[in-house]
């Protein structure tokens, strides 16, 4: 039996090595693919196959970026957008997770909150922007509210879903050991939600970033979205692309960070290849 397990472990590490090789190869291919795209873009722009005023070019964007990161206003805008996103997103997590978990656990609480959650879920949150701006003004608060609203739903829904898919066998086993409701909640329900929550948070990040930008585009006095608008009015496409790039990179970094957290939290899960 023990010998069998050793063999099992060995073959497992072999599989892991193979997987690593495969991953490295895909990484190279992805890198080349991006490089080719940038090259094509540059060539198309320089030869004016497409109007450079519309699409700018990688080199021009890089030059604009170098200029912009030396501007005070750029960092001011970053700070404002970052603040709006962080506060709105933190609120979505702090309020969304408990509401989702408790509504999945307690049917009465679910009956109270579910009409609102289901109703608002299908409402395009950006449609609420005009109202939000009237109520909260064109400052950061209105953006915090829209970030919260858009990030809240993926998080709440993922928590609810996690509670609905609890392993009843585990709960039954716990009950035979005389477990009370609180113990079942703490030792089974809560840990079960982690993978679902991380997924909800991932979706929430995407939604939250959209919310910041759309909110600022709609009405604002500062922020990346504000910068995009003013650059757009001056037809500075290169500067606009820098703004877009900043948002993209932020999204990538946040998702990457989440991946690290996910790995830490779910070392108990069989890795099903990514």
């Amino acid at each position, binding site marked *: *039996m*023990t010998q069998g*397990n050793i063999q*099992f472990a060995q073959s497992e590490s072999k599989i892991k090595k193979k997987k690593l090789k495969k991953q490295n190869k895909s990484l190279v291919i992805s890198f080349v693919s991006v490089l080719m795209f940038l090259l094509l873009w540059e060539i198309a722009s320089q030869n004016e196959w497409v109007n450079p005023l519309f699409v700018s070019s990688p080199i021009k964007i890089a030059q604009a970026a170098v200029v912009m990161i030396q501007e005070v206003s750029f960092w001011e805008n970053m700070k404002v957008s970052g603040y709006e996103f962080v506060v709105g997103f933190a609120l979505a997590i702090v309020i969304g997770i408990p509401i989702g978990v408790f509504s999945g656990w307690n049917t009465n609480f679910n009956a109270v909150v579910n009409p609102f959650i289901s109703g608002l879920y299908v409402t395009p949150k950006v449609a609420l922007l005009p109202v939000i701006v009237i109520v909260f003004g064109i400052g950061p608060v209105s953006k915090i509210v829209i970030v919260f609203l858009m990030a809240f739903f993926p998080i709440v829904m993922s928590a609810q879903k996690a509670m609905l898919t609890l*392993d009843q*066998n*585990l709960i*039954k*086993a*716990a*009950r*035979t*050991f*005389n*477990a009370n409701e609180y*113990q079942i909640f703490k*030792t*089974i329900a809560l*840990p079960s939600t*982690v993978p679902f929550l991380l997924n909800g948070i991932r979706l929430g990040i995407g939604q939250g970033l959209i919310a910041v930008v759309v909110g600022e585009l709609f009405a604002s006095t500062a922020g990346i979205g504000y910068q995009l608008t003013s650059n757009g009015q001056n037809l500075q496409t290169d500067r606009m692309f820098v703004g877009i790039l900043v948002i993209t990179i932020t999204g990538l970094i946040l998702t990457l960070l989440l991946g690290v957290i996910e790995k830490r939290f*779910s*070392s*108990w*899960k*069989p890795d099903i290849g990514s």
Partner: protein
Amino acid sequence: MAITESIQNVKLSTRFLNVTYVNNKTGAEVTALENINFDIKDGEFICIVGPSGCGKTTFLNTVVGLLKPSKGEILLDQKKIDGPGNDRAMVFQNPSLLPWKTVLDNVLYGVELQKLLSEDKKQEAKEFIEMVGLKGYENHYPHELSGGMQQRVNLARALTVNPSLLLLDEPFSALDAQTREFMQGELLRIWSETKKTSLFITHQIDEAVFLADRVFVFGARPGRVVDVINVTIPRPRDLHVKRSPEFINLVDHIWSIIEKESSKQGFVNK
């Protein structure tokens, strides 16, 4: 039919035990168990066999306290069973381990729920892990273990709460034939070391005969005890026992009882 035993050393006794399920929608009642009467002695290994749907799981769930009798009662050490308690532990057909806990933490989970976690218990848990043959796997996660190994964790978890009655509901039925035979031998070894009174459910007759001091044959519709067979094969038993004429005769005998019962019911089992 009542099976009377001398009162001394009685561990578990059921008195006219009836369990009915009530359908939530229609309100219709299904009698899953009808007038179960028997006594089990301290340290006995009892196997329950019977066609699927005859109420074996229902019976075990009632003993462990997840279900309440609709009539009659179950006495454990002369005390009426009323809900789950620290004196019983169950091993399920599916291992039901917490995937995010290590083997050691899973084995300690029962004690944790009973709020009896201590350094001594941790030590005991490690000893049971060794007893079930998983020394060195304390920090592994369930998904890293085979089905048979997971069932060992399940067993170690039950043993660590130090129950006076061990309940096992088809614990080996999900394992392949070879692992299953191996685990049967292992279980007997562990049982002889711990001397726990055990109630083991199976639908495999040879498994029951191999393990048990006595085999209770259940019949279906309603679930009840049809017969009780004494297994006189001496212990310690090893897998060679399964080829002895005595063993084969007992298996055949139980087969014929179940067959007769099934034909009476108007359906053929298997």
